């Protein structure tokens, strides 16, 4: 069956973060940061292999990355890494059933206990920490 027949929302729906609150934003950022980090990680392995070409090769490579663009990319990587780690820990706890609330008779109007302050705080702190780490990284790299 094609996508049209099944009437699936598709990638557009999967990545649209606007309708369902901060949890859905976190979901999206988690995916993007995971993929981003993977890409960086592959690049990083490749990058560091240039050390095999000796000091000259290494320095050539360093020059390529120690540019403004390079620094900005690195700062984003730092942010992604911090967000992905902090949020990853939150997600792991949540997925293990920690802090997702206790089952109880729901009373109208229904407010889902799993979408609670603890997890929202987790998401916001992941974002804030990521931002701080990125600034710090920028300060260190451009500060020199």
């Amino acid at each position, binding site marked *: 069956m094609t996508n049209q027949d099944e009437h699936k929302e598709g990638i557009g729906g999967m990545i649209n973060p606007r309708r369902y609150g901060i949890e859905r934003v976190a979901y999206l950022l988690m995916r993007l940061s995971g993929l981003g980090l*993977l890409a960086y990680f592959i690049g990083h392995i*490749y990058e560091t292999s240039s050390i095999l070409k*000796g*000091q000259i090769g290494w320095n050539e490579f360093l020059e390529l990355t*120690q540019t403004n663009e390079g620094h900005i990319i690195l700062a984003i990587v*730092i942010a992604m890494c911090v967000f992905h780690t902090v949020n990853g*820990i939150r997600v792991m706890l949540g997925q293990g059933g920690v802090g997702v609330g206790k089952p109880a008779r729901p009373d109208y109007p229904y407010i889902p206990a799993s979408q609670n302050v603890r997890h929202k705080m987790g998401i916001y702190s992941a974002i804030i920490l990521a931002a701080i780490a990125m600034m710090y990284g920028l300060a260190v790299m451009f500060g*020199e």
Partner: protein
Amino acid sequence: MRESIIMKIHYGTALAAVALVAVHILMRLTQGFSESLQYDSVIANYKFLPYAGMLEIILILLSIHGFNGLRVILLELKQGRTYEKAVSYGCVAAMIALITYGTRTIIMVNTGLGMM
């Protein structure tokens, strides 16, 4: 393999990596960013066996974690027997390739073999 085992590995590698990556990055920051990247200091790090070992472990952990993450995303994007097989084997292959490539660097630098 049961999906639960794969995912436990996914979580396990992530948790283990948290500590190690922290060390790895803190090295950059504590020594001063640029200095830490000087050729000599990098080589010195590599020559220091525990550190090299740590790099190797990070490499393995994150390759497993990262490529499994990629596998998960790809599995959810599209379905079908051949596609899913391709994704699974593709990710394992890429993972092995990356680990081999990275390991080659670490071993060669650590032992000094093949260095220019």
